[in-house]
């Protein structure tokens, strides 16, 4: 009935939202969506640097995202500029640098649109295994990180007094975000990956009484978006990544209306 690439796209997408949605809850709670967008924007530069150094592009994305995170946190501490200005500068300059750097790679043909908006056709069996492997790995780490990260999110000082190594927890969280961006990039692209983190979380908020319920709800919203988006893409011949995000946005809009009428 379906082409293989649709099945691979749905499986890979489900793997991504399984961690992107709960991580996205923290992005929403910690008000880090611009921070996440900045990490995603730097991904192209990561790809370019990795290709220059003959490394795996995904590894390049993760490494550069972590470097970005450390630079943002360090510069915020010194309070030279407001955080949003700083993040904006880094996000757009790394995006521009990335595109320029890719142009220098003469002998490599790069599907720029694929990186920016995702290309489900480009996901092979090996890629699918990689995406699922990273999803399971980050999912396990997030499971153990959950309570300390949640505690530090509610109140960092109380968490610290209760023995949570707040800085280390924050760093691991950032690395997880970078990993999800790297694998999600394949599916929905660097410009849309953050929406796959924050829209399901925002849609689930209204129906949750605890943080855990919100995370589970976000996974469900994300899963429905992936399946719905891929099917829409198949039948309507629309680009798959943006289709997934459109479905997620539609669910968010419905949840918003339900909240108004409730």
């Amino acid at each position: 009935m379906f082409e293989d690439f649709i099945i691979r796209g749905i499986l890979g997408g489900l793997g991504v939202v399984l961690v992107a949605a709960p991580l996205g809850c923290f992005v929403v709670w910690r008000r880090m969506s611009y921070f996440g967008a900045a990490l995603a924007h730097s991904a192209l530069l990561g790809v370019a640097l990795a290709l220059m150094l003959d490394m795996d592009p995904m590894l390049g994305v993760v490494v550069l995202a972590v470097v970005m995170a450390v630079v943002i946190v360090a510069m915020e501490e010194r309070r030279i500029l407001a955080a949003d200005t700083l993040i904006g500068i880094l996000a757009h300059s790394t995006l521009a640098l990335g595109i320029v750097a890719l142009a220098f790679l003469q002998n490599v043909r790069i599907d720029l649109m694929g990186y920016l908006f995702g290309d489900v056709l480009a996901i092979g069996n090996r890629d699918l295994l990689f995406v699922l492997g990273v999803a399971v790995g980050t999912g396990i780490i997030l499971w153990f990180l959950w309570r300390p990260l949640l505690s530090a999110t509610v109140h960092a000082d109380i968490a610290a007094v209760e023995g949570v190594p707040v800085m280390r927890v924050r760093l691991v969280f950032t690395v997880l975000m970078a990993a999800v961006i790297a694998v999600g990039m394949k599916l929905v692209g660097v410009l849309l990956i953050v929406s796959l983190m924050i829209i399901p979380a925002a849609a689930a908020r209204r129906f949750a009484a605890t943080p855990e319920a919100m995370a589970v709800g976000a996974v469900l919203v994300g899963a429905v978006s992936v399946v719905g988006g891929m099917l829409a893409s198949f039948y309507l011949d629309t680009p798959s990544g943006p289709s997934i995000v459109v479905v997620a946005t539609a669910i968010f809009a419905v949840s918003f209306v339900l909240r108004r009428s409730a």
Partner: protein
Amino acid sequence: MQGKLVAMTMVEEQEAGEEDVGVGALVAVEDVVVDFAGDRVLDHVGLTVSVGEIVTLIGRNGSGKTTLARTVLGLVKPKSGRVWRRRGLCIGYVPQALAPDPILPMTASRFLTLGGTADPERLNDVLDEVGMPDVADRQIVGLSGGELRRVMLARALLRDPELLVLDEPMSGIDVSGQVALYKLIGEIRDRHRCGVLLISHDLHLVMAETDQVVCLDRHVCCRGTPEVVVADPAFHTLFGPTLGDAVAIYRHEHDHRHTEAGAVAPLDEGREDTGHPGSSAGVAAAETSRS
């Protein structure tokens, strides 16, 4: 108090013996200096909190109270001076402000278990103890300031703390609520035999259950029992004659006895401040008022 305070310039937490800081001491901060952006926030400040003792820090906004508490908690590393904590000391901390965010769904019971304990029976016991038996399933966003403060106190108590640090627990609470909360803090101290470090900029009612008051203005202005501090000229200089005189010392009947001269004294005189630098004026005043 045995031994004497050892003058050292060390920033690291010390594993010093108890005899260096006094028997029963839970935390001792000595000669601590803290600078923020070139601004001296704490200037050679000392403080000790012992088992079963309530120490109240008072001072105006910007006087370094919160910074001193955060130094005690290990959240601020001083530029110089010594911070000693009893080995393995378990601290319960109720910070000045927790502004629950509506985007983060959180019931009171889930908030309590964030610290690690999950036994539902114990949760109920602690909520009963702070006088909030029915809030477990309510969202913390919907709690009033006073209710939230009590829930935060419950989370601190769940840890069975040896030391409670309460930063401005009374802000945003009406006077009758304040009296009740002070009474609760006194009861908790009696029941758990923990030390309490209390921060307040409220002058009224501050001293109800307090054993020792430390008046801070980036340095220690004066310290001693509430009666001593209220009588101290430095206290009046700091808060001005009108405010200084308006301070009421509400004590509950079981909390004090009267001396032959009719002065009010705490039940346990052994707990009085006798060995802290900078308090000589206060101690001297205490001697006079007691005789």
